[in-house]
């Protein structure tokens, strides 16, 4: 008998209801993507928590950096002029 292959790790994303994005809810192990979907249904939507599920093999995900404090995001840090509150508009100007 050949040694059993470790089941890969899948990340699970659930759309809670129509109109919402899929949101990451956790992970699970499954032999293939089809089994991952069925297991995700049983594990993460036992109480009508979803209308749609995505499963993605964890190793297929490319992430920004090994750290959540990422200089990658620094370029947006000093651009306050991208926010509407940066601009002073007199209060008597309507609909702004």
């Amino acid at each position: 008998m050949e040694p059993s292959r470790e089941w890969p790790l899948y990340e699970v994303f659930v759309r809670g209801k129509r109109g919402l994005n899929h949101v990451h809810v956790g992970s699970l192990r499954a032999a293939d993507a089809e089994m991952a979907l069925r297991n995700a249904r049983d594990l993460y939507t036992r109480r009508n928590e979803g209308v749609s599920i995505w499963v993605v093999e964890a190793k297929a995900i490319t992430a920004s950096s090994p750290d959540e404090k990422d200089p990658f995001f620094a370029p947006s840090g000093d651009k306050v002029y991208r926010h509407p509150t940066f601009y002073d508009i007199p209060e008597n100007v309507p609909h702004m």
Partner: protein
Amino acid sequence: MDAADTDARTGADARLADFERTIERDQRIEPRDWMPDRYRSTMVRQIAQHAHSEIIGMQPEGAWITRAPSLRRKAILLAKVQDEAGHGLYLYSAAETLGADRPELTARLISGRQKYSSIFNYPTPSFADVGVIGWLVDGAAICNQVPLCRSSYGPYARAMIRICKEESFHQRQGYELLMTLMRGTEAQRRMVQESVDRWWWPSLMMFGPPDAESTHTAQSMAWKIKRHTNDELRQRFVDMTVPQAAALGVTLPDPDLRWNAERGHHDFGEVDWSELKRVISGDGPCNAERIEVRRAAHEDGAWVREAAAAHAAKRARREGEAA
């Protein structure tokens, strides 16, 4: 010390300061953040023990699924035991974010290198035990777990939020089961009282040893992976349970249990800590059986895991050939 060493030292200090500041601000530590090795190993131990408890916790009640007295009770019990499996899996998933290896965690459980909650080493000889486990054991678990929804480790806190929502059903179905028995015959009422007598003290032990003897409490509180001490949570549980017992019409088996107006809490008797020590160290009524059942399930399921992997490999190969 050369310049490179100094840089490395400064880098490590900065990372530790970042880590501590994140906790200080009540923000969450996420999987790929730097964290002290001891924080990581403590979290793996805490999450794995919790996951193991959920998985082993399927057994005492699972034994009653085929013998539940009605289809309604059977469906409820099945859903509950399925939830316990789900809770175990959420938690193993959280442990994996810390680099823990899932098969290795199972191996550690089966070989006795990692523990699970002592409460699941007690037997369930009566159907009233299903109700009492829901009421007292899940009630105590909720007391323990609600503060963990604010654990500093993000994936664990998020798993706990899901778990706590589902535990509420567990506790209520148990209490309702007991109310139904209490409205029944005299023999059924005796059955409930007898079960309460057996589970009350082990439930109090679920909060762990008294604060004075709890070895990890201080560090865990500083890291915000524990939010209240064992004795605080135990007191909260007693205060919550006393009126529930009165409403049910059962007696909690503790002659020293009484309201203390001065403290604003109930006083209660001393837990038999030697029993907790004995059960944790492996000498409870069901320790060997629980592990044996888990081992058999794992070994008997090996061919299924292998067959599924072989099937997946074959399909992947065929898709490759077709492309």
